[in-house]
């Protein structure tokens, strides 16, 4: 399979999104509704990415809860990953 169209398409789309507002000439106002809607994109999209991996199986769910608690309390990515992985193995052993 030819992967070039996928590769270049993904790169173009991602770069266009990243520079979208940054390259607008000064003085252009972004519509208020768009600005408000965009605020909800990170929590909605990020949750949609991890939820299907966590809400399956017996040990993934409690491990996910542990990771959420650690992330909430300490705000550290590395600690969240380590705690979540340890919890995953602990609950898999327990159940």
């Amino acid at each position: 399979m030819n992967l070039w169209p996928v590769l270049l398409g993904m790169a173009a789309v991602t770069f266009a999104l990243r520079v979208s507002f940054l390259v607008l000439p000064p003085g252009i106002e972004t519509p208020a509704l768009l600005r408000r809607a965009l605020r909800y994109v990170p929590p909605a999209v990020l949750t949609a990415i991890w939820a299907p991996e966590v809400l399956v199986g017996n040990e993934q769910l409690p491990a996910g809860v542990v990771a959420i608690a650690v992330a909430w309390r300490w705000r550290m990515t590395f600690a969240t990953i380590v705690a979540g992985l340890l919890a995953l193995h602990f609950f898999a052993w327990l159940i």
Partner: protein
Amino acid sequence: MVASGIPPLVAMLMSILVFAGASMVASAQLLASAAPVAVVILTTLIINLRFMMYSASLRQHFAAAPLRWRLAIGYLTADNVYGLALGHFDQHPEHKLEYFLGAGLVVWGVWQLAVLAGILIGAGVPASWRLEFAAPLAFIALTIPFLRERAMIVAALAAGISVIVAQDLPLRLNIVAAAAVGITAGLLFEKRRK
């Protein structure tokens, strides 16, 4: 990614050209299931839509910077760089450009080295370690700092429930649907409270 059948060189090139982990994992899964090119690119668009929000927010800080630096800022924008920089700008409003470019370059370099290491030794890690679960855990860590307001929590919950309810949609379109439901829920909640 390599485990889903993408050649190592293409995976590394994708990491440099696209530089967006979540969309690369999703696209690798889609490519492994022989999804059409347009679907892979649409899913990339939805997953990376958050960069548009970062771009709108960063414009308030860098609108006056030369175009070449704004393009560099765009390319280097990653979730953690954005979060780090915005947190820093609150207390240190000077040298924003240098701070963002510096932090962005460090994160970019570490990320590319990590991808290279993953490509080279990924297959050598025993499956029993279940390291693939680190990906959703990293996304949990990225999500939580956004949940400062109730409307944000509503958006996240609505998206999380929708993505499960719509799980039978083909080609991971449930992510697209969940994003739309989550954004709408956040907007409606915000409106109701006024």
